């Protein structure tokens, strides 16, 4: 919050400004019209020559604030000081001399110009009002100077507003506002109807006027990018309150308030970014907004565990079982628990009161996978968890079938699942895939050498699937845990992390849109080690020989 500073260079001081307006839509047939709080205690300080941006979505009160500063509305409480003088309660006639020092430019350039007057009349109206011109000749001369100043041909003096384009009309508005040499200019959404080039030229004009005339500027806009371009300081408003005040650079590089972050992430940057439409971050943070919109059913269930339809393979034990529990806990709409024999999840089904459905599925049976994909057409989250470990070394073993079996489940099984469900996810708005691999995908542990090879294949597969499904907006996550306390790693020495932790962290990662996750200290440590010195890690792991 800006503190009140009554220093020399302070132009406008607003303290705890409140505004209530009558809510006519709620007026009963008889009796009083109820009030609605528009501004709830705003503090603002504008120095001479400073430009301050006010941003917020429709209905946040930014326009009302601008108009209250201009005293077009009478404040309900608080105080407005302009050049040290209290103007909060001045009457219209007392305000009149001050009008020359504070001017406003409105959003719709056409409705702000009298359609029946020629441009020179419009431009010099404020000067007539303050008695600064008294002849037509003089006013035409001044109008020409003003037109030149805002980069319009002087031939426009005798035109009518309807003969001008939107950008040109906005220039006329700006010229009229600066005609009386104000010290403060309030610009309310002045570029929102204009295309990029016109917008850019208007902003450049405003900037140069500001520099030449030493104007202070209050720039109201919902377009944060524009505000960033022109303002020194920015106020973010939400529901009649200031949620964040910061200088522009800080606000755009290190926003503090969640609401500011959600506003920033909603700006469509001019780069192709497939996940942008599905990123749930802003939707979650802008909770109030979706209430106003009457729409809380988020469409991006793929990042939002709550409300998603998940399918988990290998759901009978270990991490898979924990996934089912965590998904229910986080409000998944439905969970298909896939297992080779449905007996293994009977208790999960009965305890879940209908959320969990058991599906018989062996991921090595590709025909069955296709059937399941048909049957479960509403899936938005696919968790490929099924995997086997035969504790098989390369050279020390002479049986190739164990290595084949691992490949069949861990690699081909996962591949077949991704293939079968990519279309389903696409149809349901993108969705997400989480492939539960292992840190061993990145380094070989000779004690289970062929398992590592199958996991490495799984990691490569995950990258490929990510690339191929990016277009449909599918989030693809590779999860590479270290030793987890399950049957699969019973021969592996501790420390092991509990399987529930892997499930929880995976779901967190999905919700924040990560593509790779190393849950647990061991995986995290190994991955950092690999980034620093892969050879050293390989040598370490080579110690573990069967």
């Amino acid at each position, binding site marked *: 919050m800006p503190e009140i500073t009554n220093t020399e260079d302070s132009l406008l001081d607003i303290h705890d400004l409140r505004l209530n307006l009558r809510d006519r839509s709620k007026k009963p047939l008889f009796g009083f019209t109820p009030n609605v709080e528009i501004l709830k205690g705003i503090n603002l300080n504008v120095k001479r020559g400073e430009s301050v941006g006010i941003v917020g979505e429709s209905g946040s009160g930014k326009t009302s604030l601008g108009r209250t500063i201009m005293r077009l509305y009478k404040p309900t409480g608080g105080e407005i000081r302009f050049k040290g003088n209290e103007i909060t309660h001045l009457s219209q006639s007392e305000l009149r001399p001050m009008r020359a020092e504070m001017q406003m430019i409105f959003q719709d350039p056409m409705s702000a110009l009298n359609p029946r007057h020629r441009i020179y009349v419009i431009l010099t109206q404020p000067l007539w009002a303050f008695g600064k011109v008294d002849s037509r000749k003089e006013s035409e001369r001044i109008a020409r100077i003003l037109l030149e100043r805002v980069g319009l041909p002087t031939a426009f003096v005798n035109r009518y507003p309807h003969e001008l384009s939107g950008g040109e009309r906005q220039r006329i508005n700006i010229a009229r506002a600066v005609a009386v040499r104000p010290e403060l200019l309030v610009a309310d959404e002045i570029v929102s109807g204009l295309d990029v080039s016109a917008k*850019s030229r208007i902003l450049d004009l405003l900037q140069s006027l500001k520099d030449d005339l030493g104007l202070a500027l209050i720039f109201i806009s*919902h377009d944060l990018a524009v505000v*960033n371009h022109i303002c020194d300081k920015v106020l973010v408003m939400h529901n009649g309150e200031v949620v964040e005040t910061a200088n522009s650079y800080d606000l755009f590089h290190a926003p503090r308030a969640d609401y500011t972050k959600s506003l920033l992430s909603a700006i*469509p940057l001019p780069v192709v970014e497939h996940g*942008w439409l599905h990123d749930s971050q802003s939707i979650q943070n802008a909770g109030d907004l979706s209430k106003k919109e009457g729409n809380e*059913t988020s469409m991006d269930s793929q990042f939002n565990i709550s409300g998603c339809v998940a399918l988990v393979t290998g759901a009978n034990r270990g991490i898979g079982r924990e996934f089912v529990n965590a998904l229910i806990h986080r409000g998944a709409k439905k969970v298909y628990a896939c297992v080779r024999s449905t007996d293994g999840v009977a208790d999960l089904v009965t305890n879940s009161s209908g959320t969990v459905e058991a599906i018989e599925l062996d991921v090595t049976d590709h025909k069955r996978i296709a059937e399941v994909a048909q049957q479960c057409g509403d899936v938005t989250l696919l968790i490929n968890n099924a995997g086997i470990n035969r504790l098989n070394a390369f050279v020390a073993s002479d049986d190739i079938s164990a290595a084949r079996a691992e490949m069949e489940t861990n690699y081909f099984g996962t591949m077949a699942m991704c293939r079968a469900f990519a279309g389903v996810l696409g149809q349901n708005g993108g969705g997400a895939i989480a492939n539960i691999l292992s840190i061993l995908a990145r380094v070989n542990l000779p004690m289970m050498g062929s398992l590592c090879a199958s996991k490495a294949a799984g990691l490569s597969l995950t990258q490929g699937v990510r690339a191929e499904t990016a277009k449909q907006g599918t989030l693809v996550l590779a999860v590479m845990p270290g030793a987890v306390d399950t049957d699969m790693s019973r021969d592996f020495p501790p420390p092991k992390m509990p399987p529930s932790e892997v499930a929880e962290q995976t779901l967190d990662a999905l919700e924040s849109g990560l593509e790779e996750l190393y849950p647990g200290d061991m995986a995290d440590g190994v991955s950092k080690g690999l980034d620093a010195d892969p050879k050293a890690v390989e040598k370490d792991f080579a110690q573990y020989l069967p």
Partner: protein
Amino acid sequence: MNSILNIDDLHLEVRRDHIANPVLSGVDLSIKIGEIHGLVGNSGAGKSMLAKAILGILPAATRISSGVINFDGKDITRLDSKQRRHLASRHIAMIPQDPMTSLNPVRRVGKQVCDVLQLHMGMDRGKAQQETQRLLDNVQIREPKTVMRMYPFELSGGMRQRVLIAIAFSCKPELIIADEPTTALDVTVQRQILQLIKQLQMNSATALLFISHDLGVVAKICDRVSIMQSGRIVECQTAESLFDEPQHAYTQSLLETTSKYYRFDRGTNTHSETPAEHQDHA
């Protein structure tokens, strides 16, 4: 891939005081089945005129002087007005720019959707009402029954745009023309509307011509993009290559002007903070 719309060397002129001024001078454009095709250009480039030519709703003084508009294999510039009307109602739909003025202010919202269904789909009133409810539900209006009984002024801008989107998709058209559908909305609502359009488009595999002057929006939603400058298409590319390597000088200058405003990152720490919070809960 097959195209739903093929425009070949289209010339359009407007007559004013017996002088013909060219509006479009040789536009070539093809829209593939199921794609979102962006059409970008400054005000006055002829974007909306092109849309009107496709819909057959050109202003009186404007006429097509030469060229072909092929829709689904037929040249639609040669159809009479009755056939044209049938086409523009059932097979081509539009999402207009201004949600404030595009709905009838004195008719309930539900009625306005029903009208379309009764007129073009030949539904009876009961069936049309049921379908309206389903359509409003599809565009994520939470209490469709209540909203159906409301007047447009009772709805926010975003809600009105949702209703218009429901109307556009109501007759299951093959092509939808969205003329700056989010320009009147603020950024957060804009994002929701874009998400909605994308989702409905993907579910129905409708082709969409997305007209905009905002390259940012186009980057997010379009598969291919055509850039228009004073009545000509100067460049047509996939979104990826257009934003990576714009070929035409005009595209480059447009991108440069746009990028000028986006010199900030949007707080990259947002992602790293979220998991930490969740861990505390766990």
